[in-house]
């Protein structure tokens, strides 16, 4: 308990206290800085877009991994986990090799806002897949067959039978992926070039505030991100409780 407080709780409380030390107006002033506001806005936008992509693509990937069977599926399983295990700085370098200036595809996304979306899509890939996959595996085929035998089309079966049972898992994965996207830093350092107003995200703003000896500014942005993480945790907790009640 003591270790947990020393390591996690007290430092995080310190962030909130430092952020609020100047009162509400100082806090709003720090966040109102044009460059900061633009960075935060970009981060929120990218996190939302990428989360939506993950909800769709992640569910599809989980579906294919569970229901389809083909040669090389095991390899895909391993590939899904790579973004989670790969050091974020290496993830940035990895993406840079395919989407950077010497791109063999001819896509020069480095140093543009596209790079932010790309990096977030990479690092948040596993969340929805890994949440949905076990639920999909446990799903009872009887209900689907019953629906089909009663004349439901495959689309109707999916929408009315499968999707409702997957929804909590998708929501949990989406929440994690959103939180991760909001706070991403490592993979963006090399890839995005951190251009103000263009490809600079909230975490980068925090770091530059720390380096410019402006702990209040850093803490203000950090507190905002922290609130987002806390909200995500609350959502996760609620969703998990619902899943347990049902199961």
């Amino acid at each position, binding site marked *: 308990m003591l270790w947990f407080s020393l390591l996690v709780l007290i430092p995080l409380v310190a962030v909130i206290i430092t952020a609020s030390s100047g009162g509400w107006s100082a806090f709003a002033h720090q966040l109102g800085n044009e460059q900061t506001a633009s960075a935060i806005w970009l981060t929120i936008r990218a996190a939302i877009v990428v989360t939506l992509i993950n909800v769709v693509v992640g569910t599809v990937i989980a579906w294919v991994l569970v229901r389809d069977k083909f040669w090389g599926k095991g390899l895909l399983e391993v590939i899904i986990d790579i973004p989670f295990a790969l050091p974020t700085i290496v993830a940035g370098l*990895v993406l840079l090799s395919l989407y950077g200036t010497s791109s063999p595809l001819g896509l020069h996304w480095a140093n543009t806002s596209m790079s932010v979306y790309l990096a977030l899509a990479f690092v948040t890939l596993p969340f929805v897949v890994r949440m949905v996959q076990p639920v999909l595996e446990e799903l009872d085929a009887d209900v689907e067959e019953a629906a089909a035998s009663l004349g439901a089309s495959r689309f109707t079966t999916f929408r009315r039978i499968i999707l409702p049972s997957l929804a909590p898992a998708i929501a949990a994965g989406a929440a994690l992926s959103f939180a991760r996207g909001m706070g991403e830093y490592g993979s963006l350092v090399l890839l995005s070039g951190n251009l103000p107003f263009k490809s600079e995200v909230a975490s980068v703003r925090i770091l530059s505030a720390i380096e410019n000896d402006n702990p209040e500014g850093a803490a203000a942005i950090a507190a905002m991100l922290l609130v987002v993480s806390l909200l995500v945790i609350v959502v996760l907790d609620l969703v998990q409780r619902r899943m347990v009640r049902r199961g």
Partner: protein
Amino acid sequence: MAETRRAPRTPLTYVLRLVVIAYLGLLVAWPVVLVAWNAFHVPDVGFTTEAFAGIFGDPQMMHAIQLTCMAAVVATLINLVFGVSISLLLVRTEFPGKRVLSALIDLPLSVSPIVVGLALVLVYGGRDGWFGPTLESAGIQVIFATPGIIMATAFVSLPLVIREVIPVLEEIGTEQEQAAASLGASSWQTFWRITLPGIKWAVIYGVVLTLARSLGEFGAVKVVSGNVLGQTRTATLAVEEKYLNFDQQGAYAVAFLLASVSVICILVVFVLRARGARVR
């Protein structure tokens, strides 16, 4: 997997399969392969291991790698002990605030690493942190030194062991433990002989995941370490430094080393999981 059942194959099956393979290929597989390729392949020269020789010949680089390994191992050990004990606490006992604590445990997974670094600096910073000056006068420097790196690493990988162990603890229940206790085993013996073997595999997955995460931590470490050459520079920080200094070959080589370790970790977990599924 309980039973293999398959929907009838329709064109949609193939379309979905293709979409998934294309998405994963473009986003993950191709770029990762390219980095491996770049680490060994120099334009106009061909394949060479020169970059690796450069890394292993550079004492500062070796120091960075050692520091990374050391911090990762220490952080993993801390999280192992802490993780198992807090899991036992959360599953086997009731106390007020338990729900809040179990929700807070997940916090490090969703907090930005930069925020983690900032939080640690605010509390343990030598100049104007809350505890920093006191610790400093006692001769312990945390921020811009190794303890800070270890703390940052332990912070970000904190929930991994716990998340693996808790579900297993809940599943195995307390019957065997009670039986052992009723036969006169001390609580230590019960833990060592009954509980630990039961959660062994979960602990091992947790440790492997923690290790992988710890080796690769970048953001939090960047804030707390100060990145002093030969002292507090870790391998991930060196990748950035090398890349920004136009030593792309070196950056790719270090990145390749780090990436291979994490891929090996995934494979270990993958194989263990497959085995576990068979045993059950």
